[in-house]
């Protein structure tokens, strides 16, 4: 792996992370005001907001990028994405409907941990340690954690009880659509990278960077938890 390759990979990843963080995460100010003002089912707006949350959520995107890093067949991508979707849909629906108030910082720190986990798995850390983790079970489990992240963010807003179920379902549908959009973009980027011939050399470094980003997310959220 030449220095040039490393620089290129670093550059692309850093630019992506910076661009995504610029949008921030959580439900943005204007959107929050809208959500708090509506009553009754507003399917399309809620769907849009769900999709936007997913597409601009760098923690979800980093995890997804880690999950599909070494998936070459569309069948596998679909399987893992579905497992992730089942996981986060469960906790999103149950979390909001049952009013389960998980601490947002802890949930987001766990999501950061999921990013670290996936990067470690990708570079063969668990294999080296001799630990067997079923990757499908892991993606489902971390899907549950990501869903709690979505539900705590929705619950931070004073949503009207009127039409709540319909609105959560709309939000959830949007999240899945956003996931499809995000996955498509990530897959296309990986496709281009794999064809360029630098994928094999850059893969290890890229996963190290994903792990770094996961650690940053964990530190960011744990500090927030301590301060809150």
């Amino acid at each position, binding site marked *: 792996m030449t220095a040039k390759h490393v620089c290129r990979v670093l550059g692309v990843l850093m630019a992506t992370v910076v661009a995504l963080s610029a949008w921030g995460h959580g439900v943005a100010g204007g959107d929050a005001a809208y959500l708090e003002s509506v009553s009754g089912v507003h399917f399309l707006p809620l769907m849009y907001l769900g999709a936007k949350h997913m597409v601009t959520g760098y923690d979800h995107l980093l995890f997804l990028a880690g999950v599909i*890093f*070494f*998936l*070459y*067949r569309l069948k*596998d991508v679909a399987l893992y994405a579905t497992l992730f979707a089942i996981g986060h849909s469960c906790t999103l629906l149950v979390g909001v409907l049952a009013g389960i108030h998980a601490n947002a910082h802890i949930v987001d720190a766990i999501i950061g941990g999921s990013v670290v986990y996936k*990067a*470690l*798995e*990708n*570079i*063969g*850390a668990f*294999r*080296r340690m001799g630990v067997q983790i*079923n*990757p*499908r079970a892991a993606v489902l489990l971390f899907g549950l954690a990501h869903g709690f992240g979505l539900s705590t963010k929705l619950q931070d807003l004073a949503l009207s009880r009127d039409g709540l179920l319909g609105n959560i379902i709309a939000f959830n549908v949007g999240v899945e659509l956003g996931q499809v959009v995000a996955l498509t973009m990530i897959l296309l980027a990986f496709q281009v990278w794999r064809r360029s011939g630098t994928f*094999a050399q850059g*893969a*290890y470094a890229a996963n*190290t*960077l994903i*792990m*770094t*980003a*996961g*650690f*940053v997310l*964990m*530190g*960011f959220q744990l*500090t*927030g938890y301590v*301060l809150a």
Partner: protein
Amino acid sequence: MTDPQSPFQVSPPTARRLLATIAAALAAALIILVVAVLPAEYGIDPTGLGRKMGLTAINGPTRTLEIRDVIGGNEKIREVKVPDAGEPIPLPNPAVIQLKKVDAETRTMKVALKGGEETEIKTLLDAAQVIVYSWKADGEVYTDFHGHDPSMGQGFVRYEEQQTGHEGHGSLVAPFSGEHGWYWLSLEDKTLTITLTVTGYFNGIKDYGIIGQGAAQ
């Protein structure tokens, strides 16, 4: 079914390389956190670099102000964020700050005094109005800087007396409404000129001209 595997799961890196990788990732994350994320997100800035890079200002305390824009008859309300300096300590004397809608005024006056002549120039000030002044004479004068309240009759308050001098500079917050200004007496034999500049908020300046003994001549 077999799960798809990364090449590193087929032939994992050595334990030493793995540990080095994780340590590098942790170290990089720690640096990013301490230098950039914590200063920008929470204002925690142990290295001071966050402040230097202007990151601590991003999430500094702010509050939101509603600004009403009226453009072409259409009122638009937009919100702007302004820094939140916290609750102020009450100001004991509201006269300390006096907001005005017009520019402060600056006026320069010149008076020529022959030997032994005297004059007075007075600014007309409401209580608490502020002036900044400067005067110079190209010869020696006696001066008395003082204020009159019309209700005092002949009484006056003295701010500064110079038995002999050729300049005076300062500021005055009028202690009461009335006339506040200078009496000058030339101590020279020849003609001298006094130049006075007053800046501030005043209701007028009254030039009494040559008075007393000199005026009678």
